[in-house]
């Protein structure tokens, strides 16, 4: 009986707990939904002209909405500001004139609830921005905490290795002592050892150990063999990899993250590297391509400001000063020697090869490194393996037909079409 009530108590408690948590969670979730809905609308409709913390085409909405608490007026303004201006609402006229009578787009399709969601989001976001500003220390702490564990793990590993080493040594010593004890028991005292112990102490002892090791011819041979193999293979590998810079990851003038742009944001590679489809160079985007987004996006970031500086662009006045412009000097990562001709469009457009085939998981790279060795062997291996996809390309019709006659049934790789002949890349 007792046990039953105990179980029941436990059960009811957990049920209560779960229900309680669920309720809390739900309410929290519900509270968030307003702001989240607002954020979606804000991002799709407002960001072209507004920012929360900065004046753009229109006013900075954070401070504006903190000042203005009359939500009903705000809803009316956002839905149809033209009507308010036409009705000569003094508040509306004031802001209209302040921004040089630039008309704001009307959003009559937004319901009152939508607009209030947007307002909720803006206020909430403005609050977080200000909190962040007031407690910069907190943020720094968070970053440090983030870095901490990785160091700990490494040191922990080192510690484990050291301890394991000590354990091995101690065990060795124990085994040695036990062996000696065993021998002593059998009255087989080793003479050398007796001599070594009597006068010179530890130093002599060590020499003796070395001599003992050197006398073991098998061991010496084994160590030499290992050494030779190790040195030889190291030499071999390093010679073969002279001037191969796989993993080359230089520091770039701007901390541009492919992980963010190509990975998270899923921006198409060709958006920036537009040359890949039509030229031999994939081309590094010129800064006007960056400005398509970054005129608006993340304007406060010091990295983005490097773009502004390079262009001579002043985000406050939104004016360009070409005399202050100075190009950005990126560090080239993929350096093909001049003697080799490589054409991106041949591979990307004609061959339909993915960028990742050569550049690796670029969408996960915070900083880009050289993924492929870019050696001739690497080129040729791929040309030997890759079957030419000539479907839908009239250029290949006659060519593949001609090859079919010669090599019936065999795979037509790039190499078969002459893709590994010298003159295809070296001229």
């Amino acid at each position: 009986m007792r046990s039953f009530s105990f179980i029941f108590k436990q059960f009811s408690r957990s049920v209560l707990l779960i229900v309680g948590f669920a309720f809390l969670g739900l309410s929290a979730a519900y509270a968030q939904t307003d702001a989240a809905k607002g954020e979606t609308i804000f991002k799709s409709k407002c960001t072209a002209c507004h920012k929360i913390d900065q004046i753009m085409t229109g006013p900075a909405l954070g401070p504006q909405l903190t000042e203005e608490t009359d939500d009903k007026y705000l809803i009316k303004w956002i839905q149809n500001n033209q009507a308010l201006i036409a009705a000569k609402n003094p508040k509306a006229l004031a802001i209209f004139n302040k921004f040089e009578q630039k008309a704001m787009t009307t959003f009559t399709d937004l319901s009152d609830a939508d607009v209030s969601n947007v307002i909720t989001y803006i206020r909430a976001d403005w609050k977080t921005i200000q909190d962040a500003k007031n407690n910069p220390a907190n943020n720094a702490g968070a970053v440090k905490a983030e870095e901490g564990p990785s160091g700990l793990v490494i040191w922990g590993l080192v510690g484990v290795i050291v301890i394991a080493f000590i354990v091995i040594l101690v065990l060795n010593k124990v085994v040695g002592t036990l062996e000696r004890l065993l021998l002593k028991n059998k009255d087989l005292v080793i003479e050398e050892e007796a001599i070594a112990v009597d006068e010179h102490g530890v130093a002599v002892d060590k020499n003796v150990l070395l001599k003992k090791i050197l006398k073991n011819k098998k061991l010496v041979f084994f160590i030499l063999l290992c050494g030779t193999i190790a040195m030889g293979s190291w030499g071999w590998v390093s010679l073969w990899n002279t001037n191969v810079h796989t993993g080359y990851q230089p520091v770039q003038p701007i901390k541009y993250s492919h992980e963010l742009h190509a990975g998270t944001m899923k921006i198409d590679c060709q958006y920036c590297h537009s040359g890949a489809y039509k030229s031999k160079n994939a081309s590094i985007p010129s800064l006007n391509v960056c400005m398509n987004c970054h005129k608006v996006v993340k304007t406060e970031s010091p990295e983005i400001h490097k773009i502004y500086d390079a262009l001579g662009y002043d985000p406050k006045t939104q004016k360009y000063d070409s005399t202050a412009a100075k190009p950005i000097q990126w560090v080239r990562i993929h350096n093909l020697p001049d003697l080799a001709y490589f054409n991106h469009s041949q591979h990307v457009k004609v061959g339909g090869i993915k960028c990742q085939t050569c550049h690796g998981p670029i969408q996960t790279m915070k900083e880009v490194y050289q993924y492929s060795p870019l050696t001739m062997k690497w080129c040729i291996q791929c040309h030997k393996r890759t079957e030419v996809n000539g479907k839908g390309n009239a250029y290949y019709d006659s060519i593949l037909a001609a090859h079919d006659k010669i090599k019936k049934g065999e795979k037509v790789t790039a190499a078969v079409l002459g893709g590994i002949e010298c003159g295809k890349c070296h001229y």
Partner: protein
Amino acid sequence: MDSNKKYWKGLEELNKTPEFVEKNKNEFAEPIPIEEVLSGSGLSAKTPRRDFLKALGFGVGAVTLAACQKVPVHKSIPYLIKPEEVTPGVANYYSSTYEGQAILVKTREGRPIKVEGNPNDVFAKGGLSAQAQASVLDLYDVNRTKDPKIDGSDAAWPEVDAFVLRELAAIAAGGKGIRIVTSTIHSPSTLAVIADFVAKYPTAKHINYDAVSYTGIIQANQNSFGKAALPHYNFDKAEVIVSFGADFLGSWISPEEFTRQYVSNRNSKSLESKKMSRHIQFEAGMSLTGTNADNRYPIKPSEEGVALLSLYNAVAGTSLAGSKKLSNKAIDNAITLAAKELVAAKGKALVVAGSNDVATQTLVNAINSLLGSYGSTIDLDNPSKQFAGNDQDFVAFVNELTRGEVGAVLFLNANPAYDYFKAKDFTDALKKVRLKISFSDHDDETALLSNVIAPNHHYLESWGDANAVEGYYTVVQPTINPVYNTRQAEQSLLVWSESPVKDYYTYVRNTWDKGLLAKGGLSGQKGWEELLQKGMIKTAPLAAGTYTFGHELNAVAQTILDHSASLVSGDNFELQVYQSVAMGDGKRANNPWLQELPDPVSKVTWDNFAAMSLSDIKKLGYEEGDVIKIEANGYSVEVPVLAQPGQAQGTISVAVGYGRVSAGPVGNNVGKNAFPFYSFRNGTLQTTAVITKFGKTGIISPLAQTQTHHSYEGRSVIREASFTAYKKNPAAGSGNEGEHKDYNKTSLWDDHDRPVYDWVMAIDLNACTGCGACVVACSAENNIPVVGKDEVKRRREMHWIRIDRYYSFNDHGNSEEAVTKEKEIAKLTNFDNVSVVHQPMLCQHCDHAPCETVCPVLATVHSSEGLNQMAYNRCIGTRYCANNCPYKVRRFNWFNYWNDSRFDNYLNNEHTQLVLNPDVTTRFRGVMEKCSMCVQRIQAGKLKAKMEKRPLKDGEIKVACQQTCSANAIVFGNRNDKNSEVYKALQSERTYYVLEELNVQPGIGYQVKVRNLSELEA
């Protein structure tokens, strides 16, 4: 029937001089001095082992240290704001104009790297001369004037403008004359700008001054028909062409256009319809045109007038007062024969003369009138505007200067301090002028004498237009921002005439909007854009009227005879001054591509010379390379002697365009100036003179002559036939009269698979005139280094394509002079009667290439597209391939020409290297190179087709040499495509392969040279 005719490139080859034989034994004239090292103090010295170890130790250490260099960090700098039309790595083409000829300019990332012909150009239909090809290099000339200058020191443009305006105002107020001296201008906008300037300063006057002028023709047309114009010649309508010293394929008026026209009556297509024009040339020195003639007769300058009179008499059937028979009977016969042929081809005949003498040209007009040439082969109603210079005007101008009547002179593209025949008079007189302004983009001879240098843009940096021939308007547009602080001359003139139009671009637009666009049926902004895209408009030509010469000729005849008599003075030699094909009048003397282009006839680079006939040289005991002093018209120069087969005996020819002293480090003191040999007579400048004195100086200056480099050791490579024989059997002379000999019956080598493409070439020897434009085009396309005179002398020129010029003795007419065997040569006395064949020679891309089999490192291998590939980075420089190449077309990089201070003046500087083609690597020291058949263009063409998802079209890919050839002598394409032009050309009965008996299976087929000998001679 294989011809047993003897062909030779130079007299040393003909005579088998010991030196020639020795040098010809080896592929490389100068061996590496290994023998010396081994036999000298090298290995037999006392402590060779220790020295060896020392050297070894040092070597290993040095190499290790050198290799310890860190990998360089490469920067990649994108555009800040990329221009919309630029895609890095893709070339853009812009239409523009070079000297009146529509061109396309290839630019990469905003810098022009090559000039190509515009296929719609009316002159050469896509062909382009060597000079036009080379003009892009001038843009990157580091010796250009970089800033405006006042009195020799750099100044800013506003300072210059203030100074010039102040001075001009003062001069105009003082009533003194202002003169604008230019070489011929046919640009409507520039002429309008000058007119505006003249309107602003009423004392101003525009003077056209051409260093080499055609005043004689213009004046003669004025006298004969009342039309002071340079006619537009139609060589394509002429069935019989007789030329008296006019080098119309090389340097006369519009050579590229004439080449296209001339060849259209002699190429494969014409031959297949059993038609071929006849060309007879009478001249003193061997010209490029002379080498192409069916019959060429060497005559002295003094005989030219008499010969023309005889021709007139023969054509007209009259006898002009004072006319006499030529003393040379052979020439007299030839004239009679030529007259017969001309009359037979009435209405389709053309007589031209290179002389700048009014009387001579009047006589030529009379002959042409009798032959009914006007309205068919000569068009006076759509005249050429390429040359409008008037010698008389300029002489009068110099007199004005001397009298101190001129207050200001402006020089635009004119350099009289160098090319005026009495330069001293001119420079002395110029000192009296208060304001001298030069628009020259180099500190040239005249610019150095000027107060103000207002450097003009290079034409690739300029806006403008041109109207080189009536009804043909082309546009000049900039393809790069000005490289230096220069300003377009027209812009300067606008500023100085205080024009309401502030910039020249607007001015050009206005000119076109006002009337020119409408001529092409265009209008407005859209019309202007279309014009910029097409590059030109062509209005319907006016009907070419017939003109009849109706003047009295006796006075003319007397003038001619007097002139001829003045050239004869006892046994004195006669001097002929001519323009060389590469240098022209010397304006582009600072261009290393042109300096290194072998002269099409003499094959001399980097020099001018005194061309003499071999018998004269023998008589006088000279040797080639002896420097002689020539004195005529009170001027003398010292130039080396060259034995020129075909040179008329008793004459010496010297080229103008050399001897610049202020052209820049490349052109300075190359050769000697021959302009002062000109004389002013009867209102025009004469190019002939009596040599009053000449003799050896004792100095020997060997010429850098490429003619006997890369010889075949007497193997027969040329095949030719007469037109009569061709008509009987199209295969005549080709060696396949029966059927093609199959040398491939037994072969050591397996055949290469060429499943899809088989890139080959067909070269028509009957179309090739040997002008050499392809050589420069190839240099520009393939980044071929310039090596300089010294290296050329060592047989180390790098050109991938060369034009071999072969002489042979005429075995027609005089049967006793037929030379077929070497032993007969010694008996010859007359070396003048030679005929010439030009043969472009480049890598033959043999299917069984001898070079491939000997390469120890497989650096040269065969591709599945029939190309003989060269992987530079594999090459270790054994040079076996060059030794084993029967065609001698492989070139070895003796130096790192791109980074060696010895070649600073040519291409070893960062600025000039901007002209390099980024799709072709530059080769390093110790590496072999050769023609790649423009593999970069093949690859690009294929890629374009792939991207557009369509099969490759025949003729889509053009190689550089083919593209620039005005004569269309070179056809390139895929032999596997049975419908391709090249396949058809190679199927021609005339096709033969050079040295096909070696069974190397060359990929380039040549078509037999056909000579249209007269019925009597053939």
